[in-house]
Each structure stands twice: as structure tokens, then as C-alpha cells.
């Protein structure tokens, strides 16, 4: 049996221990492996049959069928399935095997195959395999039963590995999306010579507050601004860390020769900030955008 993935780094002792631990969590013993291996001689023929049935089954479902672009792709996936099946019955179950099962979770997540599709497909597969076992061991039902139980353990082990990775990949995707959202470019608008307006829309988390700092300071340099109005109308929550970013940004702006004015703090945000203990002392503030602009004009004129 060729290994699918030769791991690029030798597995550490702790990884090996975790792996062994997982196997015993699923109560998989050498005896299970031995039982499964009895299927090896028939694996080629049985594998083909089951996989063909399997595709006939899943192509009946729109949700599943739309995963396949054309016949060629189905053929490719079938080949992969065949390999998957042969690995299952060879019951090597070493770390390379585990690694491969994890990779499957990752591939599925990226392909948009839901856990329901994956588990449902596996269930079908297992059920067909169960029939094959029962038929081939007709005269020894007890043995057949044990073999099916062993198959169940390994199938669950497989699914757990794939789903762990699935969830991990999912989290990463969501995180990327969140990051992109908080990177929504904040426009820097030049109102007239020396005066910039930065309207902040949406949520202000500390990541976004930091990127706001960069944009504001770059804007000051680029436009040689002497006054900046930072408008946070529509920002519904400001905590002390974000307030701190804003204060630091305004201080940095001052060092660069620009005065900044914060406008659009809602009554609720203002009240919360006061109770938290943030005072407006280090900030130039104005009630609304209009007043902010007037203040800026005054600062520029002076």
C-alpha cells in the first residue's frame, strides 16, 4: 500500500501520542484492523460496485449533483473514492492516513460540500458495505456482525477527522471575511485645501481603529492637511480601547501639524464613555458634522 501523503516533517512524539489517543477514544484496536483486512481480497471488485451505486445514488440529488461539472470530473472523483475505499479496508490507520482524512475535510469545506452531504454519503457507503459483508459471510453471521462494527468505528474515526478540519477551515474562511469587512476602505475626502473629512461607517473594532489611524495620518501627509474632521455618526459602540486609539490618533495628528475634530458621537455612546471614565479632554469634539466643519474652519482661519 502506497502512502498517500508522505508527511514532510517527522511527526513529533506528542503528535504520535495524540494520534494513539484518538484511536483509543474510538476504541479501535489491532483486532479491528485485522477484521477489516479480511475485506482486502475483494476490495477491487466490491469497491467498483459500491462506488458506482454510490454515484447513481448521489446524482439523484440536485444539491449533490451540482458539485460535479462533467463526466470527466465524476471519473476523477470516483478514482479518488476507490483509493479512499482501498485505504479504508487496508486499515493502516497511521498518521499519514489521519492526515489524508483531514485533508478531505479541508477539500470538502472549500468545495462547499456540507457536513450533511458528507455524512449522508458516508452512511450510504457504509450501508452498502454492510450488505456486502453480510452476503460474503452468510455462514458466519457473528463474524459478519463484528466486522461491520469494526467498519463503523473506523468510519466514525474518518468522519471525526474530516469534520474537525472542516470546522477549522470554516473558521478560517469566516475570519477572512470578517477581516475583509473591517478593512472596508474608509474614504478620506478633501473638502478644501488643508481640510479633510473622514466618515467612519459601520462597526469600529480595534483592528479597524488601527487602520483608521494609518489612513488618517497618511491623508494628512498626502494632502498637507491642517485640520481633519473624523465623523463617527452611525458607529453604535465605542469601548475604552477604541477610544484610546482615537485619542492617540488625534495626538499623532497634532504632532504632524493637523488639528482633528471628532464628530457624530451619539448620546448613548457619549454616556457610556463618560461612565467608563473616558473624558473628552484630549479630544476636540463637536456635536454634528456641520458644527465640526465650522470648528475646523475656525481652526484653519486662526
Amino acid at each position, binding site marked *: 500500500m502506497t502512502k498517500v501523503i508522505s508527511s514532510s516533517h517527522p511527526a513529533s512524539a506528542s503528535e504520535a501520542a495524540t494520534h494513539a489517543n484518538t484511536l483509543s477514544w474510538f476504541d479501535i484496536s489491532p483486532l479491528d484492523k485485522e477484521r477489516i483486512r479480511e475485506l482486502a481480497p475483494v476490495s477491487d471488485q466490491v469497491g467498483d460496485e459500491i462506488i458506482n451505486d454510490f454515484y447513481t445514488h448521489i446524482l439523484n440529488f440536485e444539491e449533490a449533483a451540482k458539485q460535479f461539472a462533467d463526466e470527466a470530473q465524476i471519473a476523477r472523483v470516483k478514482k479518488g473514492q476507490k483509493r479512499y475505499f482501498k485505504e479504508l479496508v487496508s486499515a493502516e490507520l497511521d498518521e499519514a492516513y489521519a492526515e489524508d482524512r483531514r485533508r478531505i475535510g479541508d477539500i470538502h469545506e472549500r468545495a462547499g460540500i456540507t457536513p450533511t452531504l458528507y455524512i449522508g454519503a458516508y452512511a450510504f457507503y457504509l450501508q452498502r458495505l454492510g450488505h456486502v459483508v453480510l452476503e460474503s459471510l452468510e455462514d458466519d453471521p457473528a463474524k459478519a456482525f463484528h466486522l461491520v462494527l469494526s467498519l463503523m468505528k473506523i468510519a466514525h474515526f474518518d468522519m471525526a477527522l474530516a469534520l474537525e478540519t472542516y470546522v477549522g477551515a470554516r473558521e478560517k474562511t469566516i475570519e477572512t471575511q470578517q477581516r475583509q469587512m*473591517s478593512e472596508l476602505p474608509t474614504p478620506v475626502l478633501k473638502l478644501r485645501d488643508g481640510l479633510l473629512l473622514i466618515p467612519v461607517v459601520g462597526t469600529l473594532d480595534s483592528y479597524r481603529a488601527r487602520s483608521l489611524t494609518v489612513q488618517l495620518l497618511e491623508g494628512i501627509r498626502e494632502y498637507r492637511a491642517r485640520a481633519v474632521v473624523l465623523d463617527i455618526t452611525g458607529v453604535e459602540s465605542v*469601548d475604552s480601547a477604541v477610544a484610546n486609539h482615537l485619542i492617540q490618533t488625534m495626538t499623532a495628528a497634532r504632532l504632524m501639524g493637523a488639528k482633528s475634530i471628532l464628530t457624530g458621537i451619539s448620546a448613548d*455612546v457619549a454616556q457610556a464613555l463618560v*461612565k467608563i471614565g473616558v473624558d473628552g479632554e484630549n479630544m476636540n469634539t463637536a456635536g454634528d458634522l456641520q458644527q465640526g466643519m465650522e470648528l475646523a474652519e475656525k481652526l484653519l482661519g486662526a
Partner: protein
Amino acid sequence: MKAAETVTAQQQSVQHDGDVVLARQMGRQMAMALGFSKPDQALIATAISELARNIVNYASHGTVDAQPVSDGRDTGLHVVVSDRGPGIDDIEAAMTDGFSTGRSLGLGLPGTKRIVDEFDIQSTPGKGVTVTIIKWKHR
């Protein structure tokens, strides 16, 4: 206005900056469903934001659990924010205005205490921090 019984307990795990936003939105929505006034909704959102932000900044991973409470006369929102990070060595110092090891304002913990009705902080150094807060609707 909905009764407290129709608002169920909710949890948000906190690891990234974005989770802080999700946690405070969860708190705000529950507060709204419980009939808290708008300013109080903002205070609850801010309190959760402070505590969740501390997890991201100092403990890497934790949870925010929010549930309605009642003492017979009044309804409140009960929030537990906990992590298994490094913990706080000197709680008294951490509760002092202006104390910060993160070069921030040092207002998160003392400020949160000021905006809620009940505040409890427990920490075992090396084992994490658990902060429990309650905001009542009518006090």
C-alpha cells in the same frame, strides 16, 4: 416588550477582534429583547465589549455567556465572561483607573464596574479570569 422567559441564554466564543463585535451585538440584542432602555443597551454592549476585548488582548481565548435573570421584582441580564489565560496577579491594581499593562487607558475593568449593577471578578494566576456582571432593568 417580551417577558424574560422568552429570551434564552446565549454564548459567544471570543478569540478575534471580530468576536468582540459579535459578543457585544449579542448582549445588545438580548438587552433589547428584555426591554432595556436604549442607553442601557449601549451600556451593556460597552461592558461586554470591554471584557471581551480584554480576552483578545490578554488571554487569547474565552467565552461570553449571557442569560436573563429575575429576582422576583426586577429583570436583569447576567453575563459571565471567562478565559483560561494567564490570569491577573494583582486584581486591586487591575481595578484601578489608569492601570494598564497594555499601554491603553486602563479603564476597561473599573469602567465596567461603574456601568453595571453587580460586578465580580475572580482570577487565579495561571488559570484565567472570570468576570460576572448583572445589569438590572430598573435600578
